[in-house]
């Protein structure tokens, strides 16, 4: 039996360490919404502090080693991610747990506490995803940044192409309906505080891509600071008054959101002309984390169009 000499074993070990070190040391700088970030060339142990980054990663074929809390009802990927430990229960991030998981890249959000972000940066490079402010509506940019960071741009482009093809298909299949109809989108998360989503919102970009025209009154509400416009129950009726079709939020598993369901029982809702004409439809989850949410919106839009056209 051949036993390697001590010298060759030491050389082999040194070479392995050098190789590992050189791989670990290889970094690149990527541009993000909040400035350039130096990240590993090929990140292996990724942590997400919020589901807004978890879903895109899973869609791109990457599983994080730690994740922000998500419930089974709010993700189509529960089977794939249920065993991944939660390092954040929603608001606070467990920085010690993050450190214990030895990540080489962390995705967080611009709602996270600055001090906690600074602590995370001591552990690994942090890419901050914009879910509030000017970048809120640009969901595809968020997914693109994540894909870029984990070297999955081809996979991103494939998903993007599929989505665009589906939007085009809907445009073609329902061209006659889309030419004559318009839409408005709203949700109610807190009782008495409805929100209208304009064509520049996350869902708006998906729906207009599929040929939806937004009704003028709700479009006139668009604010410089965002495309999701907070209203009151008094003003919602006016915002939806010229809409031929009203679309409202439902959960990803198809269940009703309780506050929206309560509002749908109200006289205010019944007085909306489109509702009175039987033209109100569920549209999906209006905070878009990734392509699964976008496709769910298109699923529901297609059902609404089929209903309108009588197909």
């Amino acid at each position: 039996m051949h036993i390697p000499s001590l010298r060759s074993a030491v050389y082999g070990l040194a070479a392995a360490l050098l190789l590992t070190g050189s791989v670990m040391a290889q970094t690149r700088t990527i541009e993000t919404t909040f400035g350039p970030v130096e990240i590993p060339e090929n990140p292996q142990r990724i942590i997400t502090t919020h589901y807004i980054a978890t879903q895109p990663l899973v869609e791109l074929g990457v599983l994080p080693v730690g994740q922000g809390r998500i419930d089974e009802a709010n993700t189509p990927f529960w089977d794939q991610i249920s065993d991944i430990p939660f390092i954040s229960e929603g608001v606070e991030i467990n920085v010690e747990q993050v450190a214990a998981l030895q990540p080489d890249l962390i995705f967080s959000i611009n709602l996270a506490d600055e001090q906690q972000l600074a602590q995370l940066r001591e552990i690994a490079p942090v890419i901050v995803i914009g879910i509030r402010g000017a970048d809120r509506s640009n969901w595809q940019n968020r997914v693109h940044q994540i894909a870029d960071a984990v070297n999955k741009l081809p996979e991103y482009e494939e998903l993007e192409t599929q989505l665009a093809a589906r939007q085009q298909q809907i445009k073609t299949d329902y061209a006659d309906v889309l030419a004559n109809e318009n839409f408005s989108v709203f949700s109610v998360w807190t009782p008495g505080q409805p929100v209208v989503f304009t064509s520049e919102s996350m869902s708006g970009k998906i729906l207009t891509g599929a040929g939806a025209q937004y009704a003028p009154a709700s479009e006139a509400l668009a604010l410089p600071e965002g495309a999701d416009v907070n209203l009151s129950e008094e003003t919602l009726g006016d915002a939806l008054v010229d809409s031929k079709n009203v679309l409202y939020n439902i959960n990803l598993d198809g269940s009703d959101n309780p506050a929206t369901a309560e509002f749908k029982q109200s006289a205010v809702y019944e007085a909306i002309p489109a509702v009175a004409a039987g033209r109100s439809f569920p549209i999906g989850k209006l905070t878009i984390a990734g392509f699964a949410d976008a496709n769910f919106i298109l699923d529901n839009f297609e059902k609404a169009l089929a209903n309108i056209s009588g197909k």
Partner: protein
Amino acid sequence: MAAGDILTAEGQREAEERRSGLTASNSQRALGLLAALAVLFLLVLLSIAVGSRPMPLNTVIEALLGRASGNDAVVVLNLRLPRTVSAMITGLSLALAGALIQALTRNPLADPGVLGVNAGAAFAIVIGISLFDLGAAYQYVWFAFPGAILATLVVYRIGSLGRAGATPIQLTLAGIALGAVLNGLALGLTLLDPDVFDRMRGWNAGSLAGRGYEVILPLLPIFALGVLVAGLAAAPLNAAALGEDLGAALGVNLAHLRALVVVAVTLLVGAATAVAGPIGFVGLMVPHVARWIVGPDQRWIMLYCLVLGPVLVVAADIVGRLVVQPAELPVGIVTALLGAPVLIVLVRRRKASAL
């Protein structure tokens, strides 16, 4: 005049002011109450006439007379009217409960929440959202009210331990302790789940938006019972204010009186919190204003609270509907913004509104 005479005269004037408040006689107090009722009447009209959706006055009147249709009629009849009723009932309940709890504890800074009512309601709602996916205002009612009742029962049980029975200080300490525990548990559960966090954020602000008849009507008997029980406690509280021994000599059963007050506060605040969430400052501030006007007589204080509580909440709700159009500011935020400066002014005039 010697310095001692001046001090004595000043002391007498303050003592007199404490006894009578701004009004010197019952006829003046009655006139003041009528004036407050007139202000409330105007505010009620304003609450129906204005909102985040601008509407001409004649349209509002047409809607009230049943001659309008569509969105105009819906806004006036289905939003503004029930909301105004909710504001009035919530306001009078919180103010009345504040007067009762301040008189019972003989602490002018006592708030109706001191018995753990708000904390019990909030904890129950957190449980409801976490376990049953609650999210509608009418659903909150059926968790908040039993939660408030249960919390107060526990506080009363803890506060009754020992030979002295349910003394005000024991009740206060038990309420603060249980409130802290329940608030801690509620906060813990809230931070565990982003959905609960989002929904509780809205509820905690204290809002009358979206509170239709389906929310307020089932609780009307509870409010009425609370007001009735509070009325029964008014005269005995006056006697008890003279001191425990003198009160007992005048025939007041202190144990029964304390139980009566706790029942009234629980019914009033439990129902008000179930309707609108926790609305601060009303129960603290309005009794101060009432005492400042009428002096320490609980019967007059309560009558004034029945009117001034609605005045404050209806006014705050109107402001909240107008300042951030086309959205609205929750009434709880406005009462805090309006109430804090007024309370500071009143506290600076402490002797005028002291118990």
